[in-house]
């Protein structure tokens, strides 16, 4: 079916909008990296290459991202096997809980980690109580701290993708290997793992790009260790714009290379029919107890930082000094917060900005779904690419690109001053939300059976009635999932906010940061808890909706 003229015009508008939002600012950054006052120049690139600091940051980014992938896989893959292959009490609840860190804003995870393992955190207090030495022998700083914190939240990618793949895996493949005489080990290495390869590659890529763009952990724990996302901020604050642009390009390239490499996957093992996955096995006796203990132990260990955050939100300011556990608990922090308008403001800001970004990105995603999937307009590939692009581009890069594009008033170049206004953050959130919203929504559109439209039409329903009574109800779970992810992403954003916020529009994440700087741990914890609860609730509701279709 050829797309109608109206649909084609609408597609043109959507493409123009996306180009303006997604591609244009990044292209401006790239231009600024090679454009000097006197024409095109490679001077800034040379300056970048000549500075050892820049190289350090570049290699630092690369190796810490690679190491994060390895460590995340080491945690996430065995965890997935444990929770999908063995039955033990509490398996379902714990299995869902250990996936939660993926829905939590990175900054919240970082802060929680700090409260637990930092120099003045729980672990240090316990050490003090046991050994009597007030100085903990470790410092949560430098590359190892970054690595730990990142692996601690990003293992979830490996966990979720491996578990999903294991559940799709036909149980009889392993049985076939067994009946052909293969030992457990041989079945694992020769059959199961190769079949998991697409999932593992996907998880590795996702972890790598996320780690590469990761800003919160290096910013808070980095110390003297340089990575590109924090380096960009520092360079920019020093006023060296052109160099910051080159750094931005340098950060984008590995992400794009990784993305290109990953698309050359092997055969997809998931598309096999069959009687379904091997069911989780219940194990009795001593091994069974060991498996239960292992599952519970790992889950509790992985959720400990977040529990710490909740606990600390109930500890009033300056009541916890040298005791192993805080001596006083009250809701004082929550009360303080609720009664101080200047401290409630960030909460209000975050909420309305997240709502605006979510609504806008859902509308764009639905428009894209109609045009790309149902009307099959020309340029649909372009629309999809533009929607997915912000996923591959680190948040720092986008923030910088927006700061560049919308800091001058040049209406003929489609540029205007938005930086410093209330609109820049919702706009930034919207761009970050586009891929997370459009992916589930487009998938939802693709799963709609086109014959349903024809059936509705044959029953006399007009196009609008069909859309409202048939398509939209069927799409609701996908839209709910997309909206939930978008809301969570925007609500917890830190990376783009730190570059673009103004005092009046400061979001919760920045309030957490400034509370930390003031030593106001209780308030920081309260904000962390609020973010955590809001994200977890919305995320669970969204995935619940998606599951009940």
């Amino acid at each position, binding site marked *: 079916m050829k797309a109608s003229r109206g649909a084609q015009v609408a597609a043109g508008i959507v493409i123009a909008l996306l180009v303006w939002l997604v591609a244009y600012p990044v292209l401006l950054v790239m231009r600024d990296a090679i454009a000097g006052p006197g024409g095109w120049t490679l001077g800034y690139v040379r300056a970048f290459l000549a500075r050892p600091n820049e190289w350090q940051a570049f290699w630092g980014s690369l190796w810490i991202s690679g190491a994060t992938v390895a460590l995340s896989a080491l945690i996430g893959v065995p965890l997935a096997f444990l929770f999908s292959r063995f039955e033990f009490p509490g398996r379902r609840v714990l299995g869902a809980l250990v996936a939660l860190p993926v829905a939590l804003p990175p900054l919240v995870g970082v802060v929680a980690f700090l409260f637990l393992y930092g120099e003045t955190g729980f672990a240090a207090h316990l050490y003090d109580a046991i050994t009597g030495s007030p100085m903990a022998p470790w410092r949560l700083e430098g590359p190892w701290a970054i690595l730990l914190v990142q692996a601690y939240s990003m293992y979830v990618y490996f966990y979720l993708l491996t578990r999903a793949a294991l559940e799709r895996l*036909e149980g*009889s*493949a392993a*049985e*076939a*290997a*067994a*009946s*052909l*005489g*293969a*030992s457990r080990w*041989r079945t694992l290495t*020769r*059959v199961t793992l*190769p*079949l998991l*390869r697409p999932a593992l590659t996907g998880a590795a890529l996702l972890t790598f790009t996320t780690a590469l763009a990761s800003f919160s952990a290096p910013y808070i724990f980095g110390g003297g260790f340089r990575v590109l996302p924090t380096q960009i901020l520092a360079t920019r604050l020093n006023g060296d714009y052109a160099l910051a642009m080159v750094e931005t390009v340098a950060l984008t390239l590995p992400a794009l290379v990784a993305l290109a490499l990953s698309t050359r996957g*092997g*055969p997809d*093992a998931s598309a*096999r*029919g*069959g*009687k379904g996955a091997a069911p989780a096995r219940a194990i009795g006796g001593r091994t069974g107890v060991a498996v239960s203990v292992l599952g519970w132990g790992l889950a509790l260990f992985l959720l400990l930082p977040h529990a710490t955050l909740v606990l600390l939100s109930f500890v009033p300011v300056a009541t916890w000094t040298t005791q192993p556990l805080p001596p006083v608990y009250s809701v004082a922090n929550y009360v303080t917060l609720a009664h101080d308008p200047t401290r409630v403001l960030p909460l209000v800001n975050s909420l309305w900005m997240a709502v605006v970004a979510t609504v806008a990105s859902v509308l764009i995603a639905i428009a894209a779904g109609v045009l790309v999937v149902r009307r099959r307009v020309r340029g649909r590939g372009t629309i999809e690419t533009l929607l997915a692009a912000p996923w591959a581009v680190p948040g720092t890069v986008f923030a910088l690109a927006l700061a560049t594009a919308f800091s001058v008033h040049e209406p003929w170049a489609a540029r205007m001053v938005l930086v410093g206004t209330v609109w820049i953050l919702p706009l930034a959130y919207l761009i970050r939300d586009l891929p997370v919203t459009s992916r589930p929504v487009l998938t939802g559109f693709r799963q709609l059976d086109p014959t349903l439209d024809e059936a509705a039409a044959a029953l006399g329903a007009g196009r609008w009635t069909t859309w409202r009574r048939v398509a939209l109800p069927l799409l609701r779970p996908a839209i709910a999932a997309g909206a939930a992810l978008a809301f969570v992403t925007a609500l917890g954003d830190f990376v783009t906010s730190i570059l673009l916020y103004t005092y009046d529009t400061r979001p919760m994440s920045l309030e957490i940061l400034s509370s930390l700087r003031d030593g106001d741990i209780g308030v920081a914890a309260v904000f962390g808890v609020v973010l955590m609860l809001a994200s977890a609730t919305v995320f669970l509701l969204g995935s619940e909706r998606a599951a009940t279709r």
Partner: protein
Amino acid sequence: MPYLSLESLTKSFGDVRAVDRLSLDLDRGRILALLGPSGSGKTTTLRLLGGFEAPDAGRIVVDGDDVTRLPPQRRRFGMVFQHYALFPHLDVGRNVAFGLETLGIRGAELERKVGAALALVDLDGLARRRVDQLSGGQQQRVALARALAPEPRVLLLDEPLSNLDPTLRERTRRELRGVISRVGITTVLVTHDQEDAFDLGDRVAVLRGGQLEQVGTPDQLYAEPASPFVAGFVGRSSRLDAMLEESGADRVFVRIGKVRLTLPGPRPPQPPGPVVLVARPEAWRMVEPGPGDLHGPVIARRFTGALAFFTVQVADGVIVEVAAEPAAAQVGDQVGLLPHDRGIHLFRGDAR
């Protein structure tokens, strides 16, 4: 001495007895078909044989060797799965080589055996093909070659033909039969399809609710069903409630409603009382309706070529299916039915 013995196998899942004290014997080189409706325990039996489930009680003995507690890896039983379970990341040749490699076979020997296994199922030259590029029938043959390549002691087939469309099904069945007899391997197969069971099985075991209902050659099952269930599950039949009035040496008198019917032919003596009468469609002769026969209108006629099947309503809610010449009657005709001396079986009234 049988080659393969199942001795009183029992397996429960929760409260459900999936397999209940099942005993079966099979001679070397013969094919046993496990036939039954879904939930009859046939697949569980096969999985017990394969070692994928452990029985609660009972033994499995192969060639004098008790394998009940052996894991699948050490049983040397080949299995063809219902959906084939081919390894999608390996090509056809690597799939077939998989079991040989676990035996430590390498190099030229490996290539030779893979080639031989593929030749056996008529797939020479497809070794480097990806498995998802094969048709359903070809995938089934690869699965068969893969299972046979390590020269297992017993071959297990789980619904081997259920994934094929009807036209392919009959040809594949013939080829399967050919391969099994050429290899001469002792085979157990599971099916819910009577035609598959009759065509492939030297012996057929009918299962029901986890228990063995009857085992025998296809001819025996058809001609001498041990229960109304077997008579109903194997072949077509009609079922009538009747009263056995008198049992003689070469004839039996039964009453169906108001009609007293004489069933000719020798049959074991039975005490008078309520019985279930199960009749094959070819057990009846169509006659002009009279007082000494079952009679009623023809309410449906199904034409199949050489024969037609007539549905005759002999009383309210009681219908009998009769096979006869296509021209024997029309829908609406009043016909009478008299029994031949074969094809009618009597079971005790409480039998099921």
